[in-house]
């Protein structure tokens, strides 16, 4: 448990010092928002507003891929993976620390990205905020759980930037389905449907368990 | 009719091709050394 907190703290502090991941992810999300503008010309404002949950989650997914790719890159560059593997106790705690750090960083980017979308697409997010926050928060837990596990694998194999999306995206489709459904409801001002939340919670639980147990075999060297 | 034939044809063809290429690899190994499990 202390290992997890130690790693969480280390990752957040090193990110605070350099801020490179968060800035890169945010810039990327903003660019994606502009890409959508060019990709979907001639839409009326209400049409664009209807598409917003989907577009927002698309931006979130791609930004997360970017951030997750980099989450082990630092360790790899400094040959610190072996040191990480030697940490005492169950390696699952290392996973938890890393995944939580990813969650914090990605959540920050997501909040700012939502602001960018609200600005570009003239969507008023304030009524939706609690529901949206819950959906995005839950969805991101799943993304970080599966993503941290798979990033740890991808970073040690060839083609790592290409491999992570290939491995991760199929695992994220269920999350995407539930999250967009929930976000749609939240943005329409309705309460988030329970089955969407339930789905996200179930997926999160499953992925957290699989990743916690599997991390032992992934960091094994 | 042609739809159905192509469906069956593709399925049978692919499975046969796959099985035969595996068998050919084993046969090649067998011929090279007289021993099915050596290279």
């Amino acid at each position: 448990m202390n290992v997890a907190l130690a790693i969480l703290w280390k990752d957040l502090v090193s990110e605070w010092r350099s801020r490179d991941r968060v800035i890169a992810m945010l810039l990327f999300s903003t660019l994606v928002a502009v890409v959508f503008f060019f990709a979907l010309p001639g839409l009326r404002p209400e049409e664009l507003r209807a598409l917003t949950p989907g577009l927002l989650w698309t931006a979130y997914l791609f930004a997360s891929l970017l951030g997750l790719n980099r989450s082990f890159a630092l360790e790899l560059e400094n040959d610190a993976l072996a040191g990480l593997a030697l940490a005492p106790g169950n390696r699952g705690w290392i996973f938890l620390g890393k995944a939580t750090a990813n969650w914090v960083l990605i959540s920050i980017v997501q909040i700012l990205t939502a602001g960018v979308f609200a600005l570009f697409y003239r969507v008023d997010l304030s009524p939706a905020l609690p529901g949206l926050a819950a959906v995005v928060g839950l969805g991101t837990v799943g993304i970080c759980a599966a993503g941290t596990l798979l990033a740890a694998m991808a970073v040690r194999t060839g083609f790592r930037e290409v491999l992570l999306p290939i491995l991760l995206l199929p695992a994220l489709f269920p999350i995407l389905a539930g999250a967009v459904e929930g976000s749609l409801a939240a943005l329409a001002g309705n309460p988030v449907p329970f089955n969407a939340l339930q789905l996200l919670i179930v997926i999160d639980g499953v992925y957290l368990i699989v990743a916690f147990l599997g991390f032992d075999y992934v960091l094994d060297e | 009719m042609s739809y159905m034939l192509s469906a069956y044809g593709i399925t049978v063809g692919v499975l046969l091709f796959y099985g035969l290429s595996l068998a050919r690899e084993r046969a090649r190994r067998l011929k090279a050394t007289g021993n099915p499990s050596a290279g």
Partner: protein
Amino acid sequence: MNESKPMASNSENSIPSRLEAQSARWRRPLGMALGVLCIVYGWAVVSAPIDSSQGVIQKILYIHPPLAYGAYLGFIITGFAGVVFLVRGREDLDRLAIASAEVGVIFCTLMLVTGPIWARGTWGVWWSWDARLTVTLLLWFVYLAYLLLRSFSGRNPRTARFAAVYGVVGLVLIPLNYYVIEIFGSRSMHPENLERGSLGDGMGLPFLLGNLTLALAFFYLVLLRWQVESERALDDAIDTDGAHREGQAMRRGQSPGPPDAAEESPEEMTR
């Protein structure tokens, strides 16, 4: 130095292992049964009655759903074999996982080819996002990711471990995806009448034979591919030994000796 006894099958970690040797014995009889069954199945399909509403193309019913066995069973085997490999270190089961993944992806691809052909012939569209087709597509992506992971990483123990972990992720994903698509509505164009009771007259037999034949074909091909995999692994082991021998000889200052230590008979290899 050389601890592997290639021809002895009395340990779990020898190549081939006892399990592999035993399974290999089933292959021949399975193959023969398969051959006979194919003929019977072919006759049954040809002589099956033509559906009044869909026409001849309805006969794809006897080949498309049966492919699902291979597609889904393939990944289930890959997933579970991978778990036992992770927990118990059974390399022979890792080889089974590879075999099952390869055969499974072929069955899955064939499903994704015959499905749209049938769809085009009956509903006029090549694709629809209904539950079954979508889940099969997702399964296909998981298969491909698994196989790409293995091929990008080369053949080594770490690859096998990573692949096994991903196999578990994929295993979990399959029911999850079904659950998701069930909940969030599927615009289903799939005929729901595939339960035995509602098949038309004369369709029961070819359908049963189709299931049986393709199931046997799946197991036959998995056994064959498994055997090939253990042969490849043996090649690798012998090559490594051969290189090892050369290295030893060179270090001792001798000439490396016969460059193809791999051509020694396996009995000589065991000292």
